[in-house]
């Protein structure tokens, strides 16, 4: 593996690891607070038990998210010093605010996790809600920085230097809103889908059925809401990409030739050398319609761009197909949840349905990771779109392979321990005799 690829793999692995924990940190506080709110309102001990079980599980994941997030803020400089040297003054604003949100999140988290019996219940509840609010703010702000890399604004690039810098213009770059909403909804989808799978398993095992039923009662509506909103967000995101980064759209869709009535490709294995696609199904005019709302509109193909400015095709295409496919599967699952509520059918009594939820528990996170692969690989060869190449930003320090090996081993071990502890906690907390 060459130096640049090693650096990219290192960054990808670190980001891919962190994003799981960051997403859970954004979503779980709201669910914990909701359960706590219900307890304060009704006095139902089951809600309190649920809140504490979620809280303890999340505490492990929060810590792993916090340390991997801290590491990322350094890795940007360690791996891409030239990028940070030039980009720091431009897109520093969202990073500074993200740091502040992270700080507040850590404070509220300390108060929520250890504030039982020391804070008034309403103050305590507010702290729980604020953990979620700050987590969301943190996520939104960090996506602003990534949005800027896709749609760099707020400066003039003159002779390899940034001039006329406007930090706010950079922060409010046009890619930010859609990317942020798409990501947030995905975090809710992924986290609730995984939690549904976990509680469905608990229900199947027959331990403390009321506990798991209550959990699923809270999780399912959030999952359904997020899964139904997401296709609209995805569609708007794709339209935005079509306007701003046509080569990324072309890579996502393995669209090589510029043409009107551009077909939508479902599946398929693209060959970057020959520009041909095997095994795909093409829907005529589909891509033109999705990108521009008009089936006869011309869509620019990859061959219209200089070879050295084209992104890789195979990885973004497969990742995009995975994301869309799993997104559609989640819409289908949501349809079943809605149907059951409408027809008053108790899906939680259906073991086949519960096993399906268990089997599909990681699909939200797989879709989320696939989405980030599309965003990042689809922007290549640029680290700042059409301004700075990734190859020009990489560190000159040799021996990155060792860092990659270290991070892979470390994060794999931590991930394994985190989730096995979560599993043990889950078994203990969901046992009917466990007292809160």
């Amino acid at each position, binding site marked *: 593996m060459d130096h640049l690829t090693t650096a990219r793999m290192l960054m990808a692995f670190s980001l891919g690891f962190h994003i799981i924990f960051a997403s859970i940190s954004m979503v779980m506080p709201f669910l914990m607070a909701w359960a706590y709110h219900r307890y304060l309102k009704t006095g139902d001990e089951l809600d309190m038990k649920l809140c504490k079980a979620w809280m*303890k599980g999340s*505490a*492990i994941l*929060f*810590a*792993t998210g*916090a*340390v*991997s997030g*801290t*590491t990322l*803020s*350094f*890795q*940007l*400089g*360690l791996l891409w*010093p*030239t990028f*940070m*040297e*030039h980009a*720091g*003054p*431009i897109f*520093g*604003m969202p*990073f*500074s*605010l993200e*740091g*502040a949100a*992270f*700080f*507040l999140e*850590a*404070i509220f*988290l*300390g*108060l929520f*996790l*250890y504030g039982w019996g*020391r804070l008034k219940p309403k103050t305590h509840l507010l702290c729980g809600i604020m953990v979620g609010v700050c987590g969301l703010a943190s996520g939104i702000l960090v996506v602003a920085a990534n949005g800027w890399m896709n749609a760099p604004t707020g400066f003039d690039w003159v002779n390899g230097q940034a001039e006329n*810098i*406007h*930090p*706010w213009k950079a922060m409010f770059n046009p890619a930010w809103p859609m990317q942020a909403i798409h990501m947030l909804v995905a975090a809710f989808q992924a986290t609730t889908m995984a939690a549904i799978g976990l509680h469905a398993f608990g229900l199947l095992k027959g331990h403390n059925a009321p506990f798991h039923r209550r959990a699923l009662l809270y999780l399912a509506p959030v999952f359904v809401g997020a899964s139904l909103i997401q296709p609209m967000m995805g569609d708007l995101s794709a339209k935005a990409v079509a306007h701003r980064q046509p080569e990324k759209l072309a890579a996502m869709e393995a669209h090589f030739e510029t043409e009107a009535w551009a077909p939508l490709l479902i599946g398929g294995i693209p060959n970057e050398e020959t520009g041909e696609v095997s095994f795909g199904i093409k829907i005529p005019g589909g891509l033109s319609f999705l990108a521009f709302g008009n089936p006869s509109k011309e869509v620019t193909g990859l061959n219209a761009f200089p070879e050295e400015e084209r992104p890789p095709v195979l990885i973004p295409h497969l990742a995009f197909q995975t994301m869309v496919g799993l997104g559609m599967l989640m819409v289908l699952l949501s349809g079943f949840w809605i149907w059951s509520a409408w027809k008053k059918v108790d899906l939680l009594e259906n073991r086949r349905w519960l096993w399906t939820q268990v089997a599909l528990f990681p699909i939200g996170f797989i879709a989320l990771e696939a989405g980030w692969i599309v965003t990042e690989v689809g922007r290549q060869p640029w680290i700042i779109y059409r301004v700075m190449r990734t190859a020009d930003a990489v*560190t*000159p*320090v040799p021996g990155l392979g060792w*860092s990659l090996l*270290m991070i892979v081993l*470390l994060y794999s071990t*931590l991930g394994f*321990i*985190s989730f096995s*502890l979560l599993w*043990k*906690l889950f078994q*203990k907390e969901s046992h009917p005799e466990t007292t809160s």
Partner: protein
Amino acid sequence: MIVTSTFIFLVVALAAYVLFGGADFGGGLLEASLPGKPELQKKLQHTLAPVWEANHVWLIAVVVILFVGFPKAYAGISTLLFFPVSLGLLGIILRGSFFTFRKYDPDPQPRMGLYSLLFRVSSALTPSCFGFIIAGLLHEFPRLDPEMPPSFPELYLLPWFNPMGLFCAIFINALFGYLASVFFWGELDSVEEKDLIRKRILLFFLASFVSGALVLLCGWLGHLVSAERVRSLVQLEVQVLAFGGIIWMYLALRNGKRWQARFAAGMQTLAILVGWVNVMVPNVLRYQDGMHLSLQDAASPRITLIWLNIGLCIVLSLVLPLLILLYRVFNHPTNQA
């Protein structure tokens, strides 16, 4: 002016990290220095638990101010001190993770030894790396000349992996252990436990004193610090504060005044930090060709610095009251987690 105020914010964030994060790191070393005292170790863990994450977010503040306010310094440090920074991160990841695993494992006993070992080793690893980074920043680096490139060790290892780096690493660990002991002493009620921790305070103080003296000796022998700076008024003042703090500490410990002891340790630590900053500025990175990277050269354009300063004022006004609330809620043994 705006560069100076940004630099002051950077030093304030660094000071907060050294005090709060430092006491937190020192907790690992203190825990290791209490073998056969599981009850006391447990109390120490409970004292750290609610605040450890907030203590370490100061590091994020430092790094954000550095890359937004002084991006060339951030890029230079990240490249030239790649290895100690990377190893320090390894320590941060291991420490936070294993502290939490130990706390939330529903059946920790079979793995307690491993959790504690990794927590304690990583608690010493990161401060050691801070020591190496400090030594590296005082060193003069060769230039990355494409025609006559310096060797790998010359550029990436020797500037920090040297006797001065080793003594700095020991010094930072001892200082953090000292901070943790002073803080923990104030959390205890039992006379016997207080006596034991008082001995640790003395131990860590002596270790800091000896290693600190060796650092100064290395700096002097290696001509890393200019004689003019060493003789400056600021340096004289910080030395008076650092040494004067010992008397204050002694009186506070004798009279059982926990807040006075903490302020004395804080004052000594801040004096050391200011002393280091005083010998560093106006340069942040030094090169063998004499073309050092100064704060002014490393700073972002004015517009970025103005907004960064405004943002930091707003953030601090939000964060500080909440931090005070956090510490107040958990500031006594009866209120520990």
